[in-house]
């Protein structure tokens, strides 16, 4: 690479060039296909939605901010519940090597299953699409955090636990004051992956279950054959995903420590 290293802001230009190239290819493709929306069409559509974010035209016709809020609320609820369960279980497994070894194969297997694959079973079990969508998020949030927490806790330096024991900390104090902060960076790395996979899962879950939200919006616009709106929704999903990821990077930065 010939990437100039002395220009600290070189990446911004490169980034813009990539964006322009992308828009150019897209515009060309739209020109040749005639039915595919051009960037300009998507921009117009976006403006239409963005200019009335809180529009409420009945149960199936809501502004983009409301839809995003629905998705985020579902995400946060499912993610919080999943994370609490995952961290609790992870701490227990991390402190008990035998249990960890015994359950690890199953955790690895469950981790490999797309949360969407659970949907029929969940829907069958709870018989309610709202709850099923929530449970998909819950499932998606569970495994990466669980695996990371158990790994992080089982790898805590013996010194820290020794100090906790010398200080005669009660079990709960030990967990809060030593185990969780010591494993904090690993746990947050798990939370970040969980959040990512939950956000990825929420779109198809909403689409398939017809629960109000961004995923539902995508599907609805596809049924309306409005590709421009679909592309707009895709952009929103991407942007929200990046923002959430950023949030976790900050959290990770706050908890990081040098050993």
């Amino acid at each position, binding site marked *: 690479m010939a990437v100039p290293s002395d220009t600290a802001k070189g990446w911004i230009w490169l980034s813009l060039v990539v964006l322009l190239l992308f828009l150019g290819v897209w515009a060309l493709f739209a020109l040749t296909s005639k039915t595919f929306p051009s960037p300009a069409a998507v921009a117009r559509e976006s403006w239409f939605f963005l200019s009335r974010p809180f529009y409420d035209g009945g149960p199936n016709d809501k502004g983009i901010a409301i839809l995003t809020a629905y998705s985020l609320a579902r995400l946060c609820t499912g993610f919080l519940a999943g994370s609490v369960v995952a961290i609790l279980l992870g701490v227990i497994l991390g402190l008990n090597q035998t249990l960890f070894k015994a359950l690890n194969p199953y955790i690895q297997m469950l981790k490999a299953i797309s949360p969407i694959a659970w949907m029929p079973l969940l829907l069958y079990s709870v018989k309610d699409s709202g709850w099923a969508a929530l449970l998909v998020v819950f499932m998606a949030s569970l495994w990466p955090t669980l695996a990371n927490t158990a790994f992080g806790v089982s790898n805590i330096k013996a*010194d820290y636990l020794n*100090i906790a*024991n*010398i*200080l*005669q900390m009660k079990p709960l104090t030990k967990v809060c004051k030593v185990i969780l*902060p010591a494993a904090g960076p690993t746990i947050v790395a798990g939370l970040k992956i969980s959040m990512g996979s939950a956000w990825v899962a929420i779109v198809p879950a909403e689409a398939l279950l017809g629960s109000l939200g961004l995923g539902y919006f995508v599907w609805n616009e596809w049924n309306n054959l409005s590709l421009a709106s679909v592309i707009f929704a895709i952009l929103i999903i991407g942007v929200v995903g990046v923002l959430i990821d950023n949030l976790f990077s900050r959290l990770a930065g706050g908890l990081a*420590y040098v*050993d």
Partner: protein
Amino acid sequence: MWTRTEPEDQAPAAAPLFGPVGVLPQDDRGGSRRQGGTTVSKAMLEVEKISKHFTLSGQKEPFCVFRDLSLQVREKEYLSVLGHSGCGKSTLLNIIAGIDTANSGHIILNGREVQEPGLDRMVVFQNFALMPWLTVFGNVRLAVRARYPEWSKQQVADWVDKYLDMVGLSGAANKRPWELSGGMRQRAGIARAFSVKPSIMLLDEPFAQIDALTRGVIQDELVRMWEETGITIFMVTHDVDEAILLSDRIMLMSPGPQAKFMDEIEVDIPRPRKRISIIEHPRFYEIRNRIISFLSQKG
């Protein structure tokens, strides 16, 4: 809990609880044995015939670090165990601290057997063992809170400040351990240990990772705090000069496996001892030579 059958206060005054200090009658160590010594006070920590072995994978015979090791630490004493690296000093110290377990034997502190770690035996670790996610202040506060759970926030903070001040760390209270030099970190470790007022402090080569110039300063500080607080110190080290400079008494440990105490030396050089002038004291080289000659023997 197993308690001593013979409470210390019932022991006749004429016959001290321990005969030749730290020596079991059948334990043949050679060297001179002091009856009592000049500073006789009762044993506050007794290590009774502890043995430790590790079963190494792929080997039939367990690796025996030491067998039937005994010693006694008197109240307010500075006792050092001196031995080569790998002879089992840390293992011994960790067993006393309760963070490692012996395969047999007993640790008796103030007349009661102890098996779990506790605030009565604070450890100062060679690698400092400070919590890196906490500041220096936070590290000491964690200990103070554990020791005095009923105290108010302000009381705890004042107490922490007092001990940070004692080791000259007030200016670095809000720094994280990794921002500090080894010497500063160990000061925090020492402040943490003193702040909970343990019965005995266990020091595992506390100066080994500190540069030579800082080491002397911190050693002086430690001795000053030890004298001021009247705490008992048990230290393990491989540094001969450090042991002589700091200790009231030194136990020499043979190289492992199956390490034994080979000799025991009262360091009868008056305090305050200065690093520069101690080498001029006539006893210094006698003690030093005796230690060196023992340590260069084969176990």
